[in-house]
């Protein structure tokens, strides 16, 4: 904070002092970035306010505390040791519980409590409804980009 207080006048002076084109471009870029950032924060989420249920929210905390993303992916983001779990919930609760409660030859048993297992399955069910791990081929348009309808 102290740095901002002491250096802000220098920074402001540096950006405004004269009409050097370099400073002007820099200023415009910073303003555009700030505006875009606000827009991403408030309008980026396609589904609006998708707040997971309290149980799913607790599952999200377990997911992060156990560092699950180190080995697994959600929406293709995370480690590659294990499979992408975006749509694992579509295989059913029993399937998920078997892995979560006992582990496998490749996945250690994390000795999760029943509550943690329930929270994680609830979280993965929510993730399953929110998106897909793979983009279908017919979603790609002529520009090479695509739209995902949640």
């Amino acid at each position, binding site marked *: 904070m*102290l*740095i901002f207080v002491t*250096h802000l006048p*220098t920074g402001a002076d540096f950006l405004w002092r004269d009409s050097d084109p370099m400073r002007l471009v*820099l200023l415009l*870029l910073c303003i*555009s*970035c700030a505006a*875009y*950032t606000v827009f*991403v*924060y408030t*309008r*980026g*989420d*396609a*589904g609006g*306010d*998708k*707040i*997971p249920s309290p149980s799913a929210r607790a599952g*999200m905390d377990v*997911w*992060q*505390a*156990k*560092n*699950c*993303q*180190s*080995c697994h*992916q*959600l*929406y*293709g*983001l*995370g*480690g*590659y*040791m294990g*499979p*992408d779990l975006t749509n694992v919930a579509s295989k059913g609760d029993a399937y998920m519980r078997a892995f979560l409660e006992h582990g496998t*030859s*490749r996945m*250690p048993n994390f000795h999760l409590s029943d509550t943690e297992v329930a929270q994680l399955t609830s979280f993965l069910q*929510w993730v399953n409804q*929110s998106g*897909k*791990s*793979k*983009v279908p081929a017919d979603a*790609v348009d002529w*520009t*090479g*980009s*695509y*739209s*995902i*309808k*949640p």
Partner: protein
Amino acid sequence: MLVAVLCLGVLSAYAFLYPQYSNDVLPFYMLRPMHVSAALFWIIGGAVSCILVFRRQVFPPGNFSPRAERSFILLWVTTIGVIFGAYAMRKFGGREYWAFPPWLSLPLLAAWGCLMWAYFAGWRRRERKDTPLYVWMWTTGIVAFLATFLEQNLYHIPWFRDSFLRELTVQWKSNGSMVGAWNQMIYGTSLFLMVRISGNEKIAQSRSAFFFYFLGLTNLMFNWGHHIYNLPTNSWIRHISYAISMTEWLILVNIIQGFKAKLAQDRKLRHLLSYRFLMASEYWVLLNLVLALFMSIPAINRYTHGTHITVAHAMGTTIGINTMILLACFGYFLRIDDLKAQGRKRVMKGFTIAQVSLVVFWFSLIAAGLLKAWRETGLGMTSFDEIMQPVRIILQVFAVAGIGLLIGLTMVVRVYWRAIGKMPKEMDYNMQGRHESRQRRGTKAFAEQVMNEEAER
């Protein structure tokens, strides 16, 4: 730190391939964040070290806030130690890159504050006219890192965590831009070094150099969306990122156009070890840029996302580009070119082993990624074990190449480590801020003198 990164990387690779032997002692979910964090601290810490040393040659003599500098080093190093302790105790924050418990962000932030204090003490005294581009890049990198680090921690505000998609978007937005921030610092030091070695100050003041600086800055600010193409966000995030990333073709065209001149310069300066590292980084820029351009096209990203091609890009840039530039800079201020023939030979041998290993390492990751993409997206296979069976064979090659990298780069680090003890106490780059040969080093006459000395040797 580099050796720690490499050791943890090799251990992670084997924990990935043979988890049955490592899960009880060193599980992959513990090794991976250790390796990633160590890599980040090596790159960011290395870039900052170079800036702190080189700024004394650039900014006019005076007070460089040594107390703030020391506070930064103390806080930074201590926090890294605590972070590794937390990982060892299996305490995680569950985020990519910064996987440690969230409270540890506070001392890191305080450390960065000290660094900024120290850096801006010199920056304020700079000659305002014709400020070289590398100074702009250092400043941009240092400020952008602070901004992205703060953004990375926005999830402490409940509103950001209310939506998991928003949290992921902000997490990857800041991560993507943070890569741009440390690249500004590292490419800035690379440019500084190139100016010093070639003796040509114009490289850092040309219009085209500034144009590409702004292009890089635009990409830092807006081209982070390729990380989250698969995330069900609004499509305009994807489209904007795609459009911005395509401007990188200009960088590619520029590299190809300047390649002939680079080769001519290469012939003149290739006897300098620091220059060898710098040139190696330029070849890796070319390879990784081509890869990044293709990965940024959503239609192609649909196949490559979530495969080892992403790892190839991450490893190619952090080892091939960032590490090579940092080793060039450290070599420059440790004066490895002034070492005896035996030491120079060892560096050269380590460099060659590292480059060959990195080529095998990089291409095996791409091959593994292509195979996984083909089986998963092309053939539509759903069983993870079935998909990964042939991929794991390729990853064994990657793991062996990782050992080669460890051996090669450790040989280089060993010579550097010994060179620290032999460093003259009153050089222009020392921490006391003496500037006796500061002006001479940037001249053409100096470059010629170095070349003559080399030829005589």
